[in-house]
């Protein structure tokens, strides 16, 4: 749940990058940190373990400046994708305002994508949130690997697997190259701000 400081006319919201382990959530944040320097308001913090796996979370604070008279601050988080970190994943999700679900395009990760999306749904449910109502975008990451003859799923198949019912905006991407990173974040921010506007009516 975003924090709305009425006195300072400031909104602080939380966007979480969710998805299966090794799917590119941290790489998304690293690219954002490198590329959107103007909007970055602090250091990116990563808590990693063996083999660069996210242990607890990554954190990146951003400032979008004033929108309709309100200073908008955004905190970006990633969750640890590995199954064994389910309790920390749930804790990081607490108070979420928008989600970028980073799915892995590799064919061998098909099942892991779906399990992670299911895990997201059940964690949201535990916080009283509905996956169909929460601002959510999908990013189909690692599209570049298709060029290296590595079996990747088609966009249509990924849409069928994950987006048939959700019907949320989806973007092909390559976080390593930066493709589809900015556009997915922007769309998620837009949906989040629209949803917050409905809830907090801050732009009135």
């Amino acid at each position, binding site marked *: 749940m975003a924090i709305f400081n009425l006195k300072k006319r400031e909104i602080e919201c939380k966007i979480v990058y969710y998805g299966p382990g090794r799917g590119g959530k941290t790489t998304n944040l690293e690219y954002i940190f490198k590329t959107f320097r103007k909007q970055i308001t602090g250091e990116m913090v990563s808590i990693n373990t063996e083999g660069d796996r996210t242990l607890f979370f990554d954190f990146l604070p951003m400032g979008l400046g004033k929108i309709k008279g309100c200073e908008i601050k955004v905190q970006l988080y990633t969750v640890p994708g590995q199954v064994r970190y389910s309790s920390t994943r749930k*804790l990081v999700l*607490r108070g979420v305002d928008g989600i970028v679900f980073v799915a892995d395009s590799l064919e061998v990760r098909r099942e892991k994508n779906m399990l992670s999306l299911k895990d997201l749904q059940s964690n949201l449910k535990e916080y009283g949130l509905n996956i169909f109502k929460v601002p959510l975008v999908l990013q189909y990451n690692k599209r570049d*690997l298709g060029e290296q003859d590595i*079996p990747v799923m088609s966009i249509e198949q990924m849409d069928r697997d994950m987006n048939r019912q959700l019907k949320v905006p989806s973007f092909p991407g390559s976080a390593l190259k930066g493709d589809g990173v900015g556009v997915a974040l922007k769309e998620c921010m837009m949906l989040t701000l629209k949803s917050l506007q409905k809830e907090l009516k801050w732009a009135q």
Partner: protein
Amino acid sequence: MGDKENIKRLLQEAELYQGQGLLSEARLKYDAALDLIKNNPRIKNKEKLLAGLAKKINMLEVNTQKVEMGPSSPELSSRAQDLIQKLFSFSKEESEEEAALEGALALAKFGQFERALAEFNQLIANETHRLVAAKNVLRCHIALDSEELAGDKYEEWAKSDMFTHDQLETLRVFMEQVLESKGVDRKLTVVGVKAEAVVEEKKEEEFIDISSIGIYLDSGPGKGKVVEFDVNFQSGNLLSLIVSKKDGTMIEHLAIDNQLEDLQFYSPIAIFNGSGVVAAKSEIKSGPKQGDYCLDIKITST
């Protein structure tokens, strides 16, 4: 595609997956390549190829073990701990005390027990959170494998007048359960236990410690939702929750004796479902939690 191309493709995939940290996927591809090489009599330099592949699989296994055996919650820098405390103090805008408790609980959840211990020890001074903080002090000691210190801490509290007899009894029952499960034979001082408490004790021990509860709302404004509340206090099968005033509408339809089906109980060792009944519900009339609700739920089945 011929076997040669197939093997080449499998090895290419395996190496890429390994590079991506997808170790089990890499292993499957290496194994498939291994089978193809073994079963194809026409492949030249078979022994050399198999030896090279065995070396790769061995390295992959070492990496897999490193990942699997890696610490699940290593001690972080104080800067990272500060950040965890700051980011996970969700109530900072509403109540500093509540936020301090949330920050300490987050540190413990992220396995930063030494730091969490220091924070909980400070929070004991705060009357509202005294019992929760004390329980977590004991939990942190136990997580740090210092059951002895946890027991000593309890004895220190038993001698002081900081806790009520009921609170001490809750802490003692909790501690003795943990000590017993760890095979530690230590009896703790019983302070002013009421006769009925002794009778109840056996019953209480049957319930594991529940940290939070998910309630499925079948009516009211949150109909169809599962709302999760932290358990502030537990005495056997009776759970006490503090529901903030902003969530008050979620529970406004709940009344004493209402049956609650589809409850989800979260404990540090398991998540399980069950049902319960609303044992008490009241609005807090004074103090820092004025306006919040106190909701008692009695577990009837798990």
